[in-house]
């Protein structure tokens, strides 16, 4: 097994690295898109009481549909390749980010907002200097959940020709080659763990005050 693995890396290093790169790119872009959609929608949901049910409901329903089904359903609309794959991943990732944004913003205590206004902040300053910073830990947790889900599900993207480490796994399944399955699977796991770790480091840097609380 070890020999097989070594042999694979000797002969296919380039295509392996390409797959890793593709996987990372698809995941990162999907995550960014999900943040761009999820966080403003979460804010809108807390801002307009009536909108909340509609917005959160809409994304929750989309989330119930399995990613694989979304992928296949998107083929007639968007064809194959990276676009439908990313669409499916974004749909998967928006709900945790959106829900956590809603919870994070709602959990900011009223007296905190009242002091912020009382000392003379405009509504916009209250939002950017107090509300969002205080909701940030919660939003970050949502982003982390979304990211782990994206990296795992991006494996499926290979099914519709978007590339990534999923290609290795599907080839391994097709040829019944355990070495490829293991290389693919472990790489996805390592990627996911590394990304989670990076996010933790990043959140530690941004939210230094959290360390002081311990």
């Amino acid at each position, binding site marked *: 097994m070890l020999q097989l693995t070594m042999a694979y890396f000797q002969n296919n290093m380039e295509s392996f690295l390409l797959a890793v790169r593709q996987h990372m790119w698809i995941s990162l872009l999907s995550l960014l898109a999900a943040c761009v959609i999820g966080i403003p929608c979460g804010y809108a949901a807390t801002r307009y009481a009536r909108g909340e049910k509609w917005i959160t409901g809409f994304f929750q329903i989309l989330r119930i549909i399995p990613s694989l089904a979304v992928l296949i359903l998107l083929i007639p609309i968007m064809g194959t390749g990276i676009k439908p794959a990313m669409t499916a991943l974004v749909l998967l990732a928006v709900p945790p980010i959106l829900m956590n944004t809603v919870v994070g913003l709602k959990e900011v*205590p009223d*007296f*905190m907002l*009242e*002091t*912020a*206004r*009382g*000392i*003379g*902040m*405009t509504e916009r*300053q209250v939002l950017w*200097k*107090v509300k969002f*910073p*205080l909701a*940030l830990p919660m939003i970050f947790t949502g982003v982390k959940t979304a990211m782990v889900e994206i990296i795992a599900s991006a494996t499926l993207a290979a099914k519709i020709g978007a590339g990534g480490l999923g290609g290795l796994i599907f080839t391994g399944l097709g040829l019944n080659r355990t070495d490829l399955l293991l290389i693919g699977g472990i790489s996805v796991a390592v990627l996911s763990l590394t990304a989670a770790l990076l996010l933790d480091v990043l959140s530690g840097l941004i*939210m230094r*005050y959290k360390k*002081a*609380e311990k």
Partner: protein
Amino acid sequence: MTSANPAIIFQNVCKKFENSRTNAVDHVDVTIQEGEFITILGSSGCGKTTLLKMVNRLYEPDEGKILLFGEDISTVDAVKVRRRIGYVIQQVGLFPHMTIGENVAVVPKLLKWKKEKIDARVKELLTLVGLEPEEYENRYPSQLSGGQQQRVGLARALAIDPKIMLLDEPFGAIDAINRLNLQDELLRIHGGLGKTFLFVTHDIHEAFKMGDRVIIMNEGEICQFDTPRHIAAHPANDFVEMLIRSAREQEQIFFDACQ
């Protein structure tokens, strides 16, 4: 102490909340002179906090007007009004994601003061409220005790040198010994600055100790507005008399215990 210059005038001010039949604040007419330390005393739900919050426009009166130095505040932008007034509340409300120094510097930063001016002001204020700047400036609020946090709250409210300070039960959640210390220091701070203080409390001892004059409120109305000495000597109605009697009875307990 009192110049002839009125700092705050309430003219026939009423406030009613939705889902309530009675006025939370009922036809209040009060004039407060510049430099006075006024305490507002009453039990919970008597309207004292509502009255206070109308001064910095967190609430709007339904009737009447409030004048600050002769200017009707309903004609001034709420944010501008608030930036002329210091505001301290019981829960302190320090921003947990900012250091002590940053908390004190919040409003000066909003007003785009120069960095050196802000730094100097932060140091000056922390010293004024009895916190060593070098030691505390870079800590976070969660690393301070309740009493220390309220000192920072006070420093933050004083940051841009407002002429009027509103304090809503600032020492309500602080233990008795620390509270006495903070009360003395607040009096010292008031004495040195010539600002007008409006201080809400439900503790009659605190109200009588701190106030040059005391406003006693009950069910949205002002029962009496006078110096502590006058109120104790001539209670205006049964409610005030009951308040004073209850305070005396409390003292009697200690008196008896010492016999």
